[in-house]
């Protein structure tokens, strides 16, 4: 997560969107108001894993964005009326070695924003990749058959799993 970043030498290698938001200077009375033309905030709309109602949208957002930031971003920049926002931080999953199962690294944590649109508004996630349609029954059967043969092969050569398949 960008917020847990401490190593300043590596900072310049990071792209702008992954960098930590610079600290807002302390406002003293009479100072001119600081206006940010391009904040580090970003929001990525994602397809929900489970079914959600028409008036809800899900985003992955910059980890430092608060509920108020998300609401302002949508209402001021995109003119989308928002009723309510909830956020949740998800821990990154472990990246494991496939054969041995030990942990190699960890995926980055991410923050998700659940946005409820105002009354009367609705949104449907567009079908961006029409070519990637779900597999037909025939294709699904083939995949299952392949899995089955793979399993059978594993059971047959259970003592030689570490050896490449050509030498078994």
């Amino acid at each position, binding site marked *: 997560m960008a917020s847990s970043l401490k190593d300043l030498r590596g900072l310049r290698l990071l792209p702008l969107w992954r960098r930590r938001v610079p600290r807002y200077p302390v406002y003293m009375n009479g100072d001119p108001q600081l206006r940010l033309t391009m904040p580090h905030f970003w929001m990525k709309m994602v397809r929900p894993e*489970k079914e*959600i109602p028409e008036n809800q949208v899900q985003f992955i957002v910059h980890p430092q964005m608060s509920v108020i930031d998300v609401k302002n971003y949508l209402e001021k920049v995109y003119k989308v009326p928002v009723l309510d926002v909830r956020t949740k931080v998800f821990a990154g999953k472990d990246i494991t070695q496939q054969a041995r199962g030990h942990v190699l690294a960890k995926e980055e944590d991410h923050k998700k924003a659940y946005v409820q649109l105002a009354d009367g508004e609705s949104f449907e996630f567009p079908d961006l990749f029409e070519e990637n349609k779900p597999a037909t029954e025939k294709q699904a059967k083939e995949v299952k058959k392949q899995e089955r043969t793979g399993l059978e092969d594993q059971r047959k050569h259970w003592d030689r799993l570490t050896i490449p398949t050509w030498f078994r």
Partner: protein
Amino acid sequence: MAATMRRLHICRRSLAYSQKRRSSVVSVERVAISNDEPNSLYPPIKTKYPPGTWGAMEPKYAWLWDKRREESLAIPDVQQRIAALCDKEMKHLVVKVKDERPRTLDFKKYITKTHVMPGLPETYRTAVDSSLLDELTALLSPLICDSIAVEMDQLQRRGYLKHFMKAGNHQESAAAHLLLRTILCSLSAQLSGQFPHLLTMQYDENVNLAATWDRHGIKRSRRRMVHPEWFTSDIVSDQRVKANTSADFVLRSDQPLPEFVSHDSGPSTGTEIPAINFAPHVYGQPMIPKEKSTVEAGYVCGDPCEFGLMSVLNTVWSHYSAEKYGENHAQDARLGQGVMSSFVWLAAQAHNQGFNTLVDMTYPLTTQTVLTDGQHWQFLAYQLNTMELWKDNEGNHRANLCWVSDEAKLYAEVVEGKVHGFNPDVLRQLIAFLALAPAERPYDLRPTLPPTGDEPKVREQYIPVKTEEVIVVEEEKYIVE
């Protein structure tokens, strides 16, 4: 090493599976139906489903529920029965009763299987004399106006107090609590001459209420493998639910209120609660890690007054919701609180009569709920028909019912110590709620429990009699030669 471990794991799993198959044979003997022939060589026949309606439930899962029900019925004591139900630590879906977030009303209706109807039930027209109500309203209106003026006067005089009172905060809630206490106490004192059940009722403040139950239609998050080809989530579609809240004022009596409609006909059986298509987290309802369930009805088990007459709920918290999301969403949030709170209280009362999520109710229980912040009043009448919510609509055709009146203002404003725009209709409805008398039911209220003469409410002598032991001292005899 890892591969060996995996092989070991597979061996252990297949062993466990074979043991499970053997144990299922044992269960056949337990619930077997005897053959017609007396000395038959064949084993007794087991029916596909246990007795009762089960809807689209898998037979194997239905038998499991039946087994759990019989285990619960075998416990003869109320407290032990509740303890057996709540003792196991398990994952719960926790329903927030006072939920500021919008659009959760449908979920709350579904989770309690409640059908909400506008208007109040007919019982208030037939059971309570309308001319007497009008008379009492006219008599008590000035008294209530005075008590409102007195409570508001302090706030009016000390103008600085308003700076502390933000929407839905503690100060505003405390002010409403004081006003409600004054109104309730003065009304119950004045009406007790006319309605004798108010003399024997119990009154309590800030009462904790909690209940637990299971609801059909919510898939479990964890997929547990039972067989190489199928998982628990394929047959299990219910979830243990838990809710706890607090009622600001509670009135209880020794007999239950009369039922509003019949248990087995009309809207109790003829309505279908629309299913929710989305997971609970969409409605902002969290799951908690393993924890024990709780059942609290606001009194110690065995209290002489075990049945609820009325509960008054403070809705000041929803002012914040109205400020943030709008008045429509705040109204829904308040109604959600009323529905959930009524259900939780009645379910907890039913637990103390021996019923629970496994042992379904044989008669309905009713209660009255008032939602108010001192100025805006809404009246709810709730009838709990069933607690067997883990069956689908086909398996259990009963639904719980809730009647809701429109929200109305008791007074418009208080200016210079005088109440303006007093609405006597609200006071009339409040008096009608207090006037509805509890009645003795013609059947046993604890049919699933054996009768015990040693209940605390029947007992007259609480301290056991101490029997004095008479010590006979024998004289020692000395033999003198």
